[in-house]
């Protein structure tokens, strides 16, 4: 029983010790437990983390492969697109080149040729210059002709004046007014007078001043366009004896105004037509168409056959001799009647 006592004495100590040791152990146990938990959790954590890492890695690989696959697909599309675009761009560029060339060619050839236009304008201005020169020449020529015509007219006028004044020519005795003895040379008019033919002033001066304007004459507006009326004869003149024509007729014909026309008022073959006319009238009038030729049948020794009208049973009638003759016995030369054959017979016609 000592041990028991001792144990019992020690029991409380034991209990206490037990308790203390248990509690100490508890504390340590907690500590250890916590430590173990920590270690375990850490280890588990590491394990899980490793596992997660592994999973991550795996998932990354999968995703990597998948994304690569998708990306490659996408990339192929892009490349295809790019390629197409590049091709189209190339084609477009080539097409632009072709179109550029073609359009330039077309415009230049068919629509508008710049150089041709330039050439054309140059040609136009050259033609213009040529025309201008030609027209200038033409105008000059016209002027020269006019001047020449003027000079000629002047010359003619002076000539005419010289002819009118020819009597002023100087003679041997008397020097003319243009040939004064105090001059060295005679006046040019003197020379002109020497050359001029004298003008015979007998003409009745029917010189009309018509000038260039014929239309006045032909237009019935001038006073001279119609024939003048009958010029009345002078009152105190007696009719000339003799076969003279009427004075008015004569003057009319004498002073008939000039009518220059290429057309004749009467037709050209007027004479022939008049002859024809006469012949027709004669033919109408004549009973016998044959022309009377005296002694035409003289050589034929034909017996003369008298007309039936002027002959009767007893011989020819006195038709032409007795009835159409006027008898004036006072004029007879002798009293006796001359006996003509059958003249005095009467018979009916």
């Amino acid at each position: 029983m000592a041990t028991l006592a001792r144990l019992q004495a020690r029991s409380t100590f034991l209990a206490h010790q037990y308790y203390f040791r248990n509690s100490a152990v508890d504390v340590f146990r907690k500590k250890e437990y916590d430590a173990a938990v920590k270690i375990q959790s850490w280890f588990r954590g590491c394990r899980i983390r490793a596992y997660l890492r592994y999973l991550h890695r795996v998932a990354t690989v999968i995703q990597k492969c998948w994304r690569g696959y998708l990306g490659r697909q996408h990339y192929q599309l892009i490349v295809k697109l790019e390629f197409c675009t590049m091709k189209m761009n190339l084609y477009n560029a080539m097409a632009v080149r072709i179109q550029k060339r073609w359009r330039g060619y077309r415009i230049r050839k068919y629509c508008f040729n710049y150089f041709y236009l330039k050439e054309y304008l140059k040609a136009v201005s050259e033609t213009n210059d040529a025309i201008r020169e030609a027209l200038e020449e033409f105008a000059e020529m016209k002027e020269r002709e006019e001047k020449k015509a003027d000079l000629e007219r002047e010359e003619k006028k002076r000539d005419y004046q010289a002819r009118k004044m020819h009597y002023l020519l100087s003679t041997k005795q008397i020097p003319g007014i243009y040939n004064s003895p105090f001059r060295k040379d005679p006046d040019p008019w003197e020379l002109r007078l020497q050359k001029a033919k004298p003008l015979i002033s007998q003409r009745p001066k029917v010189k009309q001043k018509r000038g260039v304007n014929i239309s006045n004459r032909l237009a019935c507006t001038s006073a001279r366009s119609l024939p003048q009326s009958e010029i009345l004869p002078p009152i105190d003149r007696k009719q000339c004896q003799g076969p003279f024509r009427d004075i008015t007729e004569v003057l009319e014909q004498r002073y008939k105004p000039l009518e220059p026309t290429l057309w004749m008022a009467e037709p050209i073959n007027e004479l022939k037509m008049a002859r024809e006319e006469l012949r027709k009238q004669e033919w109408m009038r004549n009973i016998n168409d044959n022309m009377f030729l005296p002694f035409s049948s003289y050589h034929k020794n034909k017996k003369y056959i008298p007309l039936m009208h002027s002959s009767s049973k007893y011989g020819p009638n006195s038709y032409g001799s007795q009835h159409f003759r006027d008898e004036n016995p006072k004029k007879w030369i002798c009293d006796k009647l001359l006996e003509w054959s059958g003249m005095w017979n009467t018979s009916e016609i």
Partner: protein
Amino acid sequence: MSQRQVLQVFEQYQKARTQFVQMVAELATRPQNIETLQNAGVMSLLRPLLLDVVPTIQQTAALALGRLANYNGDLAEAVVKGDILPQLVYSLAEQNRFYKKAAAFVLRAVGKHSPQLAQAIVDCGALDTLVICLEDFDPGVKEAAAWALGYIARHNAELSQAVVDAGAVPLLVLCIQEPEIALKRIAASALSDISKHSPELAQTVVDVGAIAHLAQMILNPDSKLKRQVLSALSQIAKHSVDLAEMVVEAEIFPVVLTCLKDKDDYVKKNASTLIREIAKHTPELSQLIVNTGGVAAVTDCIGSCKGNIRLPGIMMLGYVAAHSENLAMAVIVSKAVPQLSVCLSEEPEDHIKAAAAWALGQIGRHTPEHARAVAVTNTLPVLLSLYMSTESSEDLQTKSKKAIKSILQKCTYLPALEPFLYDAPPNILKHVVGQFSKVLPHDSKARRLFVTSGGLKKVQEIKAGPGSLLQEYINSINSCYPEEIVRYYSPGYSDALLQRVDSYQPLAN
């Protein structure tokens, strides 16, 4: 004895009649006597003398009537009312050539005054007898008949048609071929009067082959004949392209150009009228005229005459230039633009100025090259002044405005545009500023010039409504320049600077 006395009475009466009629005919040549004659009742006295036994009295009476009717329309109406025409027409067919001449003269004198009188002549059947007279041998008779027909046909298309229906045209063409110059003139003038009214009438004249003969007579030296021939050809050519082509086929070019150098002004005028009528139809015809050097000839012709004679030539240049830009360039190359601007400034009459303005507008409206050619001659200020002046007629103002607008739209020649900035009214100013705004962004020299000449300053001074086209143009011009310069030239900048000087506090040291 008594017989002689009786005859003497008749002789005296005849003498008296002859004398009366001759004196009246002579008095009727002077216009101052005609009033007195009319008041004395000469018509009623002359009328029975037309039926006189003596042919001389008839003829002289007809001549006197003709001279009276020639003077004015009232006397001609009196002739018509007095029923003289049927008698004249009837005896026209029968009498001798002097009477025919006198009677045709009366018909002409009556027919020339008005269409109603001409219609009265047609109604009494004169046309057939006149056409018969055209076949007469005597050229005087033919001339009188052709003259009368021409005057009748002049008035309107119906009368012309009546003349054509009477069969006058082939005979007139025969008359043209006669050797007498006066007859040719009158026949050409009659053909011109007939063909001027309508294309059908012109076609009738052409069908008879008139063009060949007319074209031959262009070379004739007589100037009055040339006038009529050119007038006839231009009346034919004006109606349609086909007729114009037929006239051209008669090979009138380049002979017609010599007529442009003739001494007679009216020959020049008619020749340029003919060329104008041909040129206005199609570009091909204008091309033909340009190729034969017609433009140069017309330009010289314009330079050598004044007034209304120039007008057809100016219009011809306008028509040629209007067809296409190549033709307009050809017109420019022929040195026509300086001549036209001389016309524009020199001529006193408005309608000629209007024509010149129109022609310049047609030349300058095609491309910038053309506009430059017109602007270089300094015509734009003249056109502007004509547009702005209150004395110009409406037609002139319209035409110069159109010309300015059409040239401005293409003009890139800035020195010519600058004066416009100062003087122009707002509607034109808009276009001018627009042109500047198109040219300045691309040309640096022009920008510099614009600034130094004061144009930028002027542009800043322009007041424009916000958002309007003008404001946009001004903005685009301003955007070509750095901001300082724009601000420098804006109005009131010096005041703004002075204000800044006033309000500036110098830094206190």
